[in-house]
């Protein structure tokens, strides 16, 4: 009899390193998206189940039954009062994630508990803490007060991006791309042609990029919404608080019209363009966008125009970044990028994100040691 040699080969797949900082607040949804129905969204690679309890609060727990991982958002799973019943075997959980019933027995295993996520509803967003719940400090959530202010009218939406979130950060921190990618909407020659000033506050976690155009063409986005014709003063002031919230303070006025010495600015139009950049997975992103204005507050036609225009602009970015993701995902490692002056803000943002990532990795290592 011939001996048989059995070879056991263990293939150890290298775990890819995450690029998503943990122990951070991320926007999970608009408040309006979550009612008394089960709502699921993947945030930073974690499948999260949301619903609004009968008291009106948003709750967030893992969207996987602890028993056999059946998605609790998947029919016939259902919400009964403030408890979610798994549609596979009937495991039942409260809004805090605690299991309150299992099938066929009275003893509920001690470990039968869904991961529960800290959530805060603020400025029209539902924020979720991804990381160690003990470290969740809601006072650290950056603000975007215009989005639910009666002094502003806001249009908003969310587009799925099949690209890593860092590509959207790069995109938004360098608005010179408006001239080329968004011509006819928000791009004019002056955007790419005007120098920027960049400030970084490490302690506050802010990257601020200013581009002040003193005499610029007025793009359709602003001429049709404000009624301004002719040349304009156009200021773009980016305030990014990594990893998630990006605000573009946009000031539009006739050439030569500046704010008053006391800071009031009655003769200018102000638009607050807000993005929440939330990783869905390592290679996909929720691209939340909002446009808040302090003029034509009740003019529905202006709202319709800005909503459609900004969505078009966002989709132009999405199309470009989806392609870029494929390029990056399939190229050999070690590509050397070239950075020039327009990238000063983007590089600062990348570095701050890298520091957040290193910090979350350190925390994970400590917790696991």
């Amino acid at each position, binding site marked *: 009899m011939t001996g048989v040699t059995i070879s056991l080969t263990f293939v150890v797949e290298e775990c890819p390193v995450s690029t998503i900082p943990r122990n951070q607040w991320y926007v999970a949804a608009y408040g309006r998206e979550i009612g008394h129905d089960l709502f699921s969204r993947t945030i930073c690679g974690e499948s999260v189940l949301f619903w609004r309890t009968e008291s009106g609060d948003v709750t967030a727990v893992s969207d996987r039954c602890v028993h056999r991982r059946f998605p609790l958002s998947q029919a016939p799973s259902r919400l009964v009062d403030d408890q979610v019943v798994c549609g596979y075997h009937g495991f039942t959980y409260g809004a805090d994630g605690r299991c309150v019933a299992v099938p066929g027995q009275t003893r509920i295993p001690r470990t039968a508990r869904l991961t529960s996520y800290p959530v805060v509803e603020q400025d029209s967003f539902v924020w979720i803490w991804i990381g160690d719940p003990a470290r969740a400090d809601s006072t650290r959530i950056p603000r975007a007060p215009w989005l639910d202010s009666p002094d502003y009218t806001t249009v908003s939406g969310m587009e799925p991006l099949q690209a890593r979130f860092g590509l959207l950060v790069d995109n938004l921190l360098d608005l010179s791309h408006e001239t080329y990618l968004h011509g006819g909407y928000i791009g004019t020659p002056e955007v790419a042609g005007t*120098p920027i000033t960049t400030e*970084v*506050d*490490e*302690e506050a976690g802010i990257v601020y990029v200013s581009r002040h155009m003193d005499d610029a063409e007025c793009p359709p986005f602003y001429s049709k919404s404000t009624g301004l014709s002719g040349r304009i003063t156009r*200021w773009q002031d980016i305030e990014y608080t990594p990893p998630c919230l990006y605000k573009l*303070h946009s000031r539009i006025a006739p050439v030569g019209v500046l704010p008053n010495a006391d*800071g009031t600015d009655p003769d200018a139009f*102000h638009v607050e363009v807000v993005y929440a950049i939330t990783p869905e997975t390592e290679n996909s992103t929720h691209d939340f966008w909002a446009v808040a204005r302090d003029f034509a507050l009740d003019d529905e036609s202006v709202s319709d125009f800005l909503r459609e225009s900004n969505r078009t602009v966002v989709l132009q970015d999405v199309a470009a970044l989806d392609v870029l993701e494929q390029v990056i995902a399939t190229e050999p490692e070690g590509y050397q990028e070239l950075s020039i002056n327009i990238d*000063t803000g983007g590089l600062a943002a990348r570095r701050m994100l890298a520091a957040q990532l290193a910090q979350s990795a350190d925390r994970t290592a400590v917790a696991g040691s």
Partner: protein
Amino acid sequence: MEPTRVLSGRKVLRVVWLPGSDRLQGNCHCGAVHIADDPVEVWTWLLAHPVGHEAPAADPPPPARPEPALATAGAGS
């Protein structure tokens, strides 16, 4: 018109694209200044603090900035 300083923290780093040129001027919170040709160089210098940041005696740190309103509609947004 160059944007005025906005951030008021203790350790703000600032990079100004010098008007009419392709050069970048890095301003450290310690008052030291470095001019570079590209953003990688200027950030590398800024982050190497205090290496290379000995401010010249004739070039005192900038005066304290007024407290800005970070994100108000009327304050240069």
